[in-house]
């Protein structure tokens, strides 16, 4: 037990210790005041701009910034779709996989471009090495950089005044990649290889099994139809397997940016539960650190760029408090295990000899503590990598990931998207406080007016609309219901989770749901797109509106937004809005299931 607390405290301690240096570095990068360590790369950066025809001094209005961002993303969709459809003709396909189906390619392209990385496919039997590294991994970088750029644009909206522009999208994206994402990923990838994450271009490795395995498969007639015996039952034949075919690939390079960019799309189907993606507890620790390090750092970046680091600490404090609360619920629920197992003579008690608890869908090396911790991190952020199967969590343990996604992933959140989401909540919080005391709300010296609140409302209201609407549609249609895997309330949770994860650009799943169907590929494809860009565009509009405003000096009537009171106000706003939107739906899923569990 003590060890569990130590592991969690160590994680939070290391994370928070990194927040300031990381945030300071990012602020320097985006302000163009590069530290000496990376200044040698400036000529490379400038060469980039020359080739691209970008004037790095030329800033953009928010509309132009949004247009550039959407163009960049559309190119990504085309590239990833094309690579999947043509992979059978392209190199680096040692297993000879065929082209991916059109609906799955569409879904995967949108999903990776929007930083969702929802996976309806099985990586190790679908995607060639080229598709993984040139299509999917590249979007891991690009979608992360896009999110960071939008967050920086919003910060500039607060930091500057009476200006029409919010920065240059091409500069922000290029700097995000070459100074932040690429160097850290390279170091992280090599650390992961040192733990056993594979990195090669070899064909799958066959090894002999110590004990051969066998299974029954349906016998087929000459034309490939299943044979039936006289009474109409399928005829099966026994297949004996003496070898194991071990899937390999350039995994570490993709794994590093998958976590650092809060993407979460696994190279393999089992994602970070797979021993080749996440082989040791240290690899797991580094993965969890990578997920939160940029979101935590960006809070400090925000404070530094608006000229008052206390503002950033207040945001980070709100996030950390919310995170610890959700983590406690997940750990408690999973450690308590499944009461039905105990009656069968199964020992779920934690001891020095075993982690105990609900081990269905979890890995021995991570046990309960690191599985529940990872699940809470990956859904607080919009990462969506999983080191344990969320579908098999206890009802309350599974409620935590679901609820965190539905709150908009503002608890640390995705790279960039977490901070801009939380800042939108901060705008809403000062607005609510202003209503209560009858004053014009202001945040960081900016008057919050009708247009700003409209944009903030869009960001807050669009996700529940699509999540709840999509879930309602899916559970009414046969095409939606037929993919559900688990019976009862849990089956409803699977559908609710799917739409929450898609709109929240998370990408984790209650993976029992058979989502690789034309219905889900299409519906969730649109959900990830709207969940991303219908929020980013209003955020940029908000940035533009704020940048153009005058800065008003603080007066006795101004509410301080770095105080403990503001931290709790912000937490309250996040929880209140989330509860109003989602409690009824959650009641039908995990809550009913919990009450039914004996």
């Amino acid at each position, binding site marked *: 037990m003590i060890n569990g607390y130590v592991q969690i405290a160590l994680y939070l301690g290391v994370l928070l210790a990194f927040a300031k240096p990381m945030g300071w570095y990012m602020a320097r990068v985006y302000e163009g005041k590069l530290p000496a360590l990376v200044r040698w790369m400036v000529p490379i950066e400038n060469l980039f701009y020359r080739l*691209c025809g970008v004037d790095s001094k030329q800033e953009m209005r928010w509309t132009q910034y949004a*247009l550039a961002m959407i*163009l960049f993303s559309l190119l990504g969709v085309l590239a990833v779709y094309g690579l999947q459809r043509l992979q059978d003709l392209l190199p680096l396909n040692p297993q000879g996989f065929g082209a991916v189906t059109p609906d799955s390619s569409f879904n995967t392209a949108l999903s990776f471009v929007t930083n969702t990385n929802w996976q309806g496919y099985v990586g190790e039997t679908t995607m060639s090495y080229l598709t993984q*590294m*040139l299509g999917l*991994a590249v979007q891991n970088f*690009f979608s992360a950089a896009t999110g960071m750029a939008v967050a920086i644009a919003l910060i500039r909206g607060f930091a500057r005044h009476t200006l029409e522009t919010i920065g240059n999208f091409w500069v922000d994206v290029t700097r995000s990649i*070459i100074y932040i994402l690429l160097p850290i990923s390279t170091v992280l*990838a*090599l650390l992961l*290889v040192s733990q*056993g*994450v*594979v*990195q*090669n271009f070899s064909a799958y*490795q066959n*090894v002999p*099994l*110590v004990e051969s*395995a*066998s299974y029954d*498969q349906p016998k087929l007639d000459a034309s490939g139809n299943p044979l039936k015996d006289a009474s109409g039952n399928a005829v099966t034949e026994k*297949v004996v397997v003496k070898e*194991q*075919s071990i*899937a390999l690939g*350039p995994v570490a*390079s*993709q794994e590093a*940016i998958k976590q650092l960019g809060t993407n979460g799309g696994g190279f393999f189907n*089992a994602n970070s539960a*797979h021993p*080749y993606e996440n082989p040791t*507890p*240290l690899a797991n*620790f580094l993965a969890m650190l990578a997920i939160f390090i940029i979101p935590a750092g960006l809070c400090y970046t925000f404070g530094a760029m608006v000229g008052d680091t206390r503002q950033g600490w207040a945001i980070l404090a709100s996030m950390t408090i919310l995170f610890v609360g959700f983590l406690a619920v997940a750990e408690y629920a999973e450690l308590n295990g499944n009461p039905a*197992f105990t009656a069968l*003579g*199964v*020992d779920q008690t934690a*001891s020095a000899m*075993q*982690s*105990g608890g*609900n081990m*269905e869908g*979890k*890995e021995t090396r991570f046990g309960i503590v690191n*599985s529940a911790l990872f699940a809470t991190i990956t859904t607080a952020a919009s990462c969506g990598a999983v080191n*344990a199967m969320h*579908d*098999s969590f*206890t*009802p309350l343990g599974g409620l935590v990931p679901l609820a965190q996604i539905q709150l908009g992933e503002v608890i640390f959140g995705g790279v960039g998207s977490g901070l801009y989401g939380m800042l939108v909540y901060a705008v809403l919080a000062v607005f609510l406080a202003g209503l209560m005391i009858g004053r014009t709300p202001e945040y960081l010296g900016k008057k919050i007016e009708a247009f700003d609140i409209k944009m903030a409302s869009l960001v807050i209201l669009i996700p529940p609309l699509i999540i709840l609407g999509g879930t309602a549609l899916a559970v009414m249609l046969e095409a939606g219901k037929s993919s559900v895997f*688990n019976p009862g309330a*849990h089956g409803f949770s699977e559908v609710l989770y799917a739409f929450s994860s898609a709109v929240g650009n998370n990408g984790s799943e209650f*993976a*029992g749901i058979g989502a690789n169907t034309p219905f889900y590929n299409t519906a969730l494809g649109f959900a990830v797109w709207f969940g991303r860009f219908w929020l980013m565009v209003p955020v940029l509009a908000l940035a533009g509106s704020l940048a153009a405003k005058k800065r008003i000096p603080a007066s006795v009537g101004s509410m301080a937004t770095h105080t403990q009171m503001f931290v709790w106000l912000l937490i309250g706003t996040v929880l209140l809005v989330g509860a109003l939107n989602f409690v009824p739906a959650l009641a039908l899923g995990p809550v009913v299931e919990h009450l039914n*569990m004996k």
Partner: protein
Amino acid sequence: MLKELRPAIVSFLLLTMLTGIGYPLLVTGISQVVMPDKANGSLIVKEGKPVGSSLIGQSFSDPKYFWSRPSATSPMPNNPTASGGSNLGPTNPALMDAVKARVQALRDADPGNQQPIPVDLVTASGSGLDPHISPAAAEYQLARVARVRNLNPNALRKLVAEHIEGRQFGILGEPRVNVLELNLALDAVH
């Protein structure tokens, strides 16, 4: 619109080459030179031939071996080309049936043993490839393996203890036993 088209296309191509070709090749190059064993799958090599991977579990059902975690991969357990868990929900009757059957199989293989069964031994792992079991799960099976192989239980316990990996740096993760390595060692001494 057109004004942004050139930067969009050119930066897309340049950054794709950097992150999609340069970066993975650099990482592959360094890994293959500095740590080829890890980068190629931590294979266990005997007499020049790979006999398994220390990171990829295998399935065992013979009482003379320590059994691995149950695996929900299809069509056979521990299939590394179809990794994944069962995704059975906590209240799904199919999960209860599966656990019941696994409890029964363990009891049948070791009739006298009435100890409670460690949970990891009757629940499917997340990857379907989990190479480890808990020390408790190894201890539960120890008497059976010793009996079938005519080994002194204490000598076997010593062998198992040698295969327990503690928490990393004494803190991270959970103690565990690598099943394939343990069984290969058993076959080697026996």
